[in-house]
């Protein structure tokens, strides 16, 4: 039933949602082709989850349409649902049921039977590396395992699209790594992934990104397109001896207009990033300033901007 005009699995036009006088989502339009990993970024409360729930048919939109797999979500919600998977922000598996009982319930809800159910169950247990932990209840599992279990539950019926709402929140780097490897295998099998996240390094792995701010879609495109459009030029990065002090020095300098055509100056862990149009020229300028202000530093270099720079730039621009 795919709309053969384009192989878009999700087409959203002017989707809006108003809660009383507050507009949570303001005329968002998006196209997501089949098999793509789509990242949906934005600060808390920007309307990410609301948009997702509208596309899932959980929340009736105030305006606009959402065509998923060729069907309008308002009318054929139920037929679409059989081919969707959803992993919400809150862990919504049953804490008092064991891992196996949870997965069997999900499998059966999507109509899987006996040997099909068995094979899918083994597949999910395998990729989520929960073999041998079937009898644990989710409360006995650590954060990472619970995330993989929730993902497993969402893909047990081989959905065409899976929606993941901040799946890796609060998960340590290694488990995040494992989680994304899992996503790659799923995506390579042709499943479209619609994911929201706050980890900008994860956003880099997405093929298309949407950036929403106070309900309005302010940027879309591949990670490289977004970086080129919104963060032209590059970043001067160095490791200051006294990060907080040096940051203060640079920011006051910028306010006094000494560092023209530089935009965001932020801390990235132990390094400081200075966003500029022309990296080399600004780098010498900064080294001079730092020496003059006796702010010791190491590893001064010019690197291309990352998505985190883009995120900070876009939010700063909107304020």
């Amino acid at each position, binding site marked *: 039933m795919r709309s053969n005009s384009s192989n878009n699995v999700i087409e959203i036009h002017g989707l809006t949602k108003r809660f009383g006088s507050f507009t949570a989502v303001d005329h968002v339009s998006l196209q997501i082709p089949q098999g793509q990993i789509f990242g949906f970024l934005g600060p808390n*409360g920007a309307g990410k989850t609301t948009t997702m729930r509208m596309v899932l048919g959980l929340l009736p939109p105030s305006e606009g349409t959402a065509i998923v797999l060729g069907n309008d979500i308002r009318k054929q919600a139920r037929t679409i649902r059989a081919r969707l998977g959803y992993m919400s922000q809150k862990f919504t598996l049953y804490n008092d049921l064991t891992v196996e009982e949870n997965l069997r319930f999900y499998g059966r809800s999507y109509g899987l039977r006996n040997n099909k159910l068995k094979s899918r169950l083994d597949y999910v247990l395998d990729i989520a590396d929960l073999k041998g932990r079937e009898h644990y209840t989710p409360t006995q599992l650590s954060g990472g395992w619970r995330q993989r279990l929730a993902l497993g539950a969402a893909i047990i019926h081989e959905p065409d699209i899976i929606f993941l709402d901040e799946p890796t929140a609060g998960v340590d780097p290694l488990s995040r790594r494992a989680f994304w490897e899992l996503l790659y295998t799923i995506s390579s099998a042709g499943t479209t992934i619609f994911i929201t996240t706050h980890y900008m390094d994860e956003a880099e792995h997405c093929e298309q990104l949407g950036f929403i701010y106070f309900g309005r879609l302010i940027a879309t495109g591949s990670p490289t397109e977004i970086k080129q459009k919104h963060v032209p030029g590059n970043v001067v990065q160095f490791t200051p001896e006294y990060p*907080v002090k040096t940051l203060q020095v640079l920011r006051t300098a910028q306010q006094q207009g000494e560092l023209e055509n530089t935009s965001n100056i932020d801390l990235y862990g132990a390094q400081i990033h200075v966003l500029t149009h022309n990296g080399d020229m600004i780098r010498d300028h900064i080294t001079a300033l730092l020496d003059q202000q006796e702010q010791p530093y190491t590893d001064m270099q010019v690197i291309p901007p990352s998505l985190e720079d883009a995120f900070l730039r876009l939010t700063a621009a909107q304020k």
Partner: protein
Amino acid sequence: MIQTHRLSRTFGKRLRRNQITAVDSLSLTIPQGELFGLVGPDGAGKTTTLRMLAGILKPTTGNATISDHDIVDEAETIKQSLGYMPQQFGLYQDLTVDENLNFICDVFNVVGAAREHRIHELLDFTNLHEFRQRRSKHLSGGMQKKLGLSAALVHKPNLLLLDEPTTGVDPVARREFWDILTELHASGSTIVVSTPYMDEAERCNRVGLMYEGKLMACDTPLKLKQLLPGVVYALRADDLLRAERILKTNASVLDVQPYGDILNIIVPDESHHRQLKEQLSQHDITIHSLRPTPPRLEEVFIYLVRQYRKDSNLQQEQFA
């Protein structure tokens, strides 16, 4: 300030097979006024440790003192000047920001003019002023976290225990949160914070890496980075996935870690730079750039945990 001696905690029935040791004989000393970061994979015992220090979870064996008060016998005295922020939002969803803060002030006996002044100060601090009358369930994730922090700061505690305060918060709000923390730290209070974000751990005086309930490493970020044997090269290329598989076959490469749009390659020393380039070009991977980059705790963390897993597997094999 904090002194623990072989602190440990197990969950689950003694006899039943799935008894889990969450924290395994942890010995740790945190001096007054330090910003201490606690990192580690999930289930490493970070939350359990913080809960034991906050005196809301009894340790199974071992003990610990906070400014010389025992965490089990004198838990109540410790709590007088302790600020604790649990992982999930610990305040009341159906109460407004004001009502929540006033309630906490009552609990900590912050009264009269001091209360009004303190609340005002905190709302400035976290710029939550215009949300005073909003129910906390209508606050965004970042704002809820700031409210949680202010609740823990109402009585100006000299020890702050924060359990993953910035989880699920966007990068901008995270930075604002940490600016508050560094300011607090500058004013002298001791802060122990557990976090999954390695970039935040970088801003701590010392970082403790926990793994399966044990303290695997505990030192300043700088010293931890020295644990990395060799140099880190950042590779920017087209097909990073394929590059990763190729480099894994190279014996002299110690570890390969993808991060966003770059691939961090750990090699013993600079001499391997040329050899890496050749290997990649043999498999016709177009390299945009391959340059040494300062190691970050993220890479140290992944390297150490993988190392640890290899050793413990080795041990298991010996015993198995």
